């Protein structure tokens, strides 16, 4: 039930944004990640971004995770 899927923020207006899940774009609430910026990859659970994905360690894995 605690499913969270990585998506890239492509737009942000206030606490709302849009995230790209490898082609599928959905609205995402950013209330819980006030510092999230466009371009960040975030974990999204039930419509809310809950954490920023740290891409520094493993970029090729991250790209594969998002691109599926």
């Amino acid at each position: 039930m605690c499913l969270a899927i990585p998506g890239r923020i492509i737009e942000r207006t206030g606490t709302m944004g849009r995230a790209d899940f490898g082609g599928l774009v959905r609205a995402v609430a950013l209330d819980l990640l006030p510092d999230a910026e466009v371009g960040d990859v975030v974990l999204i659970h039930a419509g809310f971004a809950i954490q920023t994905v740290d891409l520094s360690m493993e970029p090729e894995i991250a790209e594969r995770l998002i691109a599926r």
Partner: protein
Amino acid sequence: MIPAGAIESVRATLDEIVRRSAEICRRTGRDAVQIMEVCGTHTMSFAASGLRGMLPDTVRLLSGPGCPVCVTTPGDVDRAVWFARQPGVTLVTFGDMMKVPGSAGSLSDARALGADVRMAYSPADALELARGDPQREFIFLGVGFETTAPLVAATVRAAAREGIRNFSVFPLFKLVPPALRAILARRDHHIDGFILPGHVSAIIGLDPYRFVADEFGVPGIIAGFEPFDLLEALPMLLRLCRQEKAAIDIQYTRGVPAGGNPAALRILKEFFLPAEAVWRAVGAIPDSGLAFRPEYDAFNAVRKFPGMPAHDPPEPKGCLCGAILMGRILPADCPLFGAACTPETAVGPCMVSSEGACAAAYKYGLTETSRWKKSRRRQEVAVRS
């Protein structure tokens, strides 16, 4: 496509798992290292990836209480149905809860009988429904762990700021660390190490688990959900099992900073207080739930609609979900498993939820029983004679 070198590295990792687990077994005199994967999504990932079947006999995975649907009591389902039946009320829920049976049917049954029950992907969708129909009351069924509770708090905050009065929440949230404490407090638990839930930890971070190692001497690894995450987490955990001093570490570093999500933790504190919660088939666990702070009573469905039934019906007869959720037995030990209890005719919650231990065991043909008890006893006898 499988990247170059991947097969070799998987093989090397499996070899390490075989070697280290055998070494631990030699030292402890037990037949297997027993690892509890707390989270239902891990249960599914281990089985669906085929990794579970590739593990040696010296590693035994036990499913824990980490599926919020599984640990919702039949009494709480009955209360959700009661809310759904109030005149002028729409109950909004995550889809996972629809088919969980109470003592007189599920939310799905209630809907078939005319109650207005709707499924939503996000609590924000429930608030959107309330915005669009101010004459009707919308109650969101607040089921979930630390991962989900902050989203609901953020939704309540939005409702409060906009002055939306026809939205409330029936809070049934549960917290993972107190449940781990309840499992470990039983001296005869069989757990050598934990695979800890990745997305609960994305919110709470590492610190709330420290007692697992410090007070109970059991190590744990916070793991991600991809097969390669699990493949990395197991050797990490086995290495910790060998250490003198138990510790908690993070494998899922890309999603879990040690401090968790401070904004989410702040909003949890702002809206909720820890409260006793009753876990299905397990019982009451102190401070393992979240109650609304009194200043948010207007959004608490329990306060808004007085008269909620307090009755807690007994568990279905013969159902052993409680012992399964606590890692004491395996699904195939239950006499109902695969016979009276299947995903189509589920008796207990572990079979209802798609992430339940029994549903996973049924779907992936895991027929292992807890023969370890026997082998353990045999060893004890051997030592004595």
